[in-house]
């Protein structure tokens, strides 16, 4: 259980949460735009079902409302670190096959990657605020992906962007939960308690 919040910590958390909500909201809008462009330029079917792709963090969660604040932050942080690596890889693959048509896509991908990195850092800020240890990044980063065909890369990219779009919505909801004043003290609950 986290020590009772000092007003300044609660205020700081509230500020970080609302900035995080805006950042995630903007990121979601950009990811949705990127997804539309990606589907079109890669000649994919927007309604295609993409099986869960290994290494892509799933936004789907059960009993979401029962999660503690720390769980929310740690799961978010792990996800956005994974997306940072996945988007960097997509960008690299994109550059390998860079055609003129893909330049715009490359820029949009880079912009989203930047936002994902910024958001990951924001989550670390929130964890630091709670004097929660920031989980170290896996030194050697995620295992190198299996060599995929061009079409498999495209499908994986679709899966990555779809999950990221859903994660952005989840993050907004998570941050709203964290920003909620706790019923008793009226101050935002310590991370461990916030439902």
């Amino acid at each position, binding site marked *: 259980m986290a020590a009772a919040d000092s007003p300044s910590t609660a205020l700081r958390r509230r500020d970080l949460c609302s900035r995080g909500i805006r950042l995630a909201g903007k990121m*979601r809008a950009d990811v949705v735009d990127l997804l539309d462009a990606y589907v079109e330029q890669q000649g994919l079917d927007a309604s295609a079902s993409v099986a869960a792709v290994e290494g892509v963090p*799933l936004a*789907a969660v059960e009993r979401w*409302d029962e999660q503690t604040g720390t769980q929310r932050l740690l799961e978010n942080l792990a996800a956005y670190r994974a997306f940072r690596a996945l988007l960097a890889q997509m960008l690299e693959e994109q550059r390998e096959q860079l055609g003129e048509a893909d330049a715009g896509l490359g820029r949009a991908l880079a912009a989203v990657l930047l936002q994902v990195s910024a958001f990951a850092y924001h989550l670390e800020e929130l964890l630091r605020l709670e004097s929660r240890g920031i989980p170290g990044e896996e030194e050697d980063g995620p295992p190198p992906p299996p060599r995929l065909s061009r079409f498999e890369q495209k499908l994986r990219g679709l899966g990555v962007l779809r999950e990221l779009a859903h*994660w952005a*919505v989840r993050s907004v909801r998570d941050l709203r939960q964290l920003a909620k004043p706790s019923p008793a003290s009226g101050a935002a609950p310590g991370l461990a308690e916030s439902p």
Partner: protein
Amino acid sequence: DSHVQYERVGADVTMKCGSMDWDAAVTWTANGTDIDESHLNGSYLILKNVGLSQSGQYFCYEGSSWHLKYQTNLRVGTPPKEPVLMCRSNNYPKGFYCSWHLPTPTYIPNFFNISVIHGTKDMVCEKDSPPKNRCHIKYLQLFSTVKYKVTLTVTNALGKNFTTLTFDEFAIVKPDPPESVVAKPVPNNPRRLEVSWQNPSSWPDPESFPLKFFLRYRPLILDQWQHVELSDGTSHTITDAYAGKEYIIQVAAKDSDIGTWSDWSVAVHATPWTEEPKHLTTEAQITETTSVSTSSFMAPPTTKICDKGAVVGS
């Protein structure tokens, strides 16, 4: 023997009189009325190109003894067309409901079976009690990119049909309209109207899942709506109303991150504050006239000068 017999509209129907021979003398009745001999072929009843009106109770009696030999309840109808299915979440993130109807009636009983699959998981759809064609599904997972697949099958004695819907969790989120919409003039402000409303009561957690709102308003004398989108709060002050004109106002709601707009709320009417026309009471008139030359004084039509205490317009 007696049973229910379903036949399609337009079908030709032949009924045997139970175990009676073809050439036996019989009498057929429909809903208590004797059937004309022209419909008989021996003891068989022949109904050509049946219509809905020929549904009913058919009896066959042995000629002389009037023993009842056969009885059937003929139900004329049609096989079901592809049902119309709609799924929606108006209480996100609790769950969603699906409702359905048939585009055209079948005139005979229909049985609906609905299956809801999320990825590989079969989900329970809690049916409302008849005649409501609706059932409710609880979300087991949130924020899932896996699509939901809902298949509705309808069956009746004359045929079967089905329809399938596939959708994303976020796409079907559509709140109910805002409730308790109130519009009031703002005293001393001839161009303002204060509008307030409440979150739809079906929306379970506005704090974690806040709604944003869309307000539209216009004077009754114009057709063109004015719109304003509000990302939080449940009230707004219109500051550009035409003075003295009655306004019609509606509000819609949407989850601030996902889904679609609700239908418009119930319309409310209001007219901005207007200055009360100056009604001078009799006393005021006298004091007025002593300061003004008497030739210019005009008494309001309803007041007698010497009638003490009379107030115009009261």
